[in-house]
């Protein structure tokens, strides 16, 4: 009997308190974003789609050493080397299979030339599987760059050295 009274008391007095909580949120601004019209800025270390860096004069940084492929836990990277006009080593073929890739960032960590980075982009859906094999041309940053190269280098250095702006 006592239990039942208690239960009735709870049902009448305590349970409606929950509605106050939900009611409160009707008058608050929603926390959700109006995606895809608005996007959340990703953290500086975010591991998105890869890109290959260039030196300021436009030559590729990647020397096709294969360390990124060795570090890749998913075996997603394939490359073949060649020599450029100046007799320097570079990649003839450099492919990342984004369907295999698990975005662990090990390639970025392994690269001794600071050539490969994981960018901020996370929307890369497509219609067929072949287009997920990203080739070197698709990954190389355009030269001359559209954005301010100085800013870009600072951003890259920040990523590598683990320092970030606090904003």
């Amino acid at each position, binding site marked *: 009997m006592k239990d039942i009274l208690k239960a009735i008391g*709870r049902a009448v007095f305590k349970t409606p308190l*929950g509605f106050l*909580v939900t009611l409160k949120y009707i008058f608050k601004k929603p926390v959700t974003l109006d995606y895809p019209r608005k996007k959340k800025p990703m953290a500086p270390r975010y*591991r998105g789609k890869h890109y290959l860096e260039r030196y300021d004069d436009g030559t590729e940084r990647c020397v096709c050493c294969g*360390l990124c492929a*060795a570090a890749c*836990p998913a075996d997603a990277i394939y490359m073949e080397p060649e020599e450029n006009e100046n007799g320097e080593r570079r990649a003839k073929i450099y492919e990342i299979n984004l369907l295999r890739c698990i975005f662990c960032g090990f390639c970025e960590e392994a690269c001794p030339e600071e050539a490969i980075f994981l960018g901020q982009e996370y929307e890369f859906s497509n219609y067929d599987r072949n287009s997920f094999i990203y080739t070197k041309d698709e990954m190389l940053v355009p030269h001359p760059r559209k954005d301010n190269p100085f800013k870009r280098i600072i951003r890259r250095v920040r990523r590598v050295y*683990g320092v970030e702006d606090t904003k």
Partner: protein
Amino acid sequence: MAEHKNITLNMGPQHPATHGVLRVELELEGETVVKARPVIGYLHTGIEKTMESKLYYKALPATDRMDYLAPMSNNLGYCLAVEKLMEIEVPEKVKWARACLAELTRINSHLVWLGTHVLDLGALSPVLYTFREREMILDIYEACGGQRMMTSYIRIGGLSHDLPVDFDKKVRHIIDVLPEKILEYETLLTENQIFINRTKNVAVISAEDAVNWSLSGPMLRGSGVKHDIRKANPYSGYENFDFEIPVGENGDAYDRYKVRLEEMRQSLRIARQALDGMPEGPYRAHVPGVVLPPKEDVLHKMESMIFHFKIITEGFKAPCGAVYQAIEAPKGELGFYIAGDGTNHPRRVRVRPPSFVNIACLPALCEGGLVADVVCAIGSVDIVLGEVDR
């Protein structure tokens, strides 16, 4: 008079309330469950075997994918095990940072549990609120390691990057904000008669049975057994922290709910202590040839560069021998058994996943109860099928 026959009912593997691809074979007599048999294996990914075929450092991302709601705990368990095998001593700062992150992970996991569990019981709002709070923790993950779920942030011998600059500020924000929110969940649920009816005296397991089923984590503590690996067998600097182990009394779903909510508060307490006491120092141990040197050294120092190449291409050789390292993951005892054989990949990796052991007691929880309470039983166990099947 018509003959009565028991009905066999298949629940899952695509049932929304089985939290993944768990299948439960139920034998029903009317609405009463006579027999329940959990069937697992629908999400088997061979993670243990994959880890065995990889170098030690390359096996790490696989651990993220077991209990994907608590990636940092898995990373931590694996790294501690390998560090034990290799006899690596990590810097003090790393220990404190890891403890702080592991506690955030516990909150993360419990928040998702709370939301989805009460969603199964018919309460629709808490899931929206808990996921909102979880977002703050995921933001911290993202700032630390760069990924929101598959963090791979805790590495063998330390962390992958240094802690982000505003780590302290962000975690303190959570510590300040979350208690109010937990109070909000309590207002919604703790005294809610519907919730009490659905969970009190449902899915009961006695303390003795809980021990016999070798349950761990909140499942065990909900039954009143005061056992927590963080206290019983401290790792990663947990002996420095002051916290309580909440326990339940009856071992029903309601008690487990209370235990988990209290655990979130205690986690906040630990996180605060970890932040206050975090010493300065390097974020990786200096063990040439085993732990990757920091990237800035690699670019400037020849020696580091050589070690960098060596570790990346051929890993490091672990001594012969086996270690077992257990940690208190959000769901219970997460153990890694790793046997090294002198080569650069493990001979055997065996994971003792808490969800797998805990879900085994499902028959004990369900049998004799109503079929509607099976959902409550599964929810209150808190399973992640990625971890059950591995």
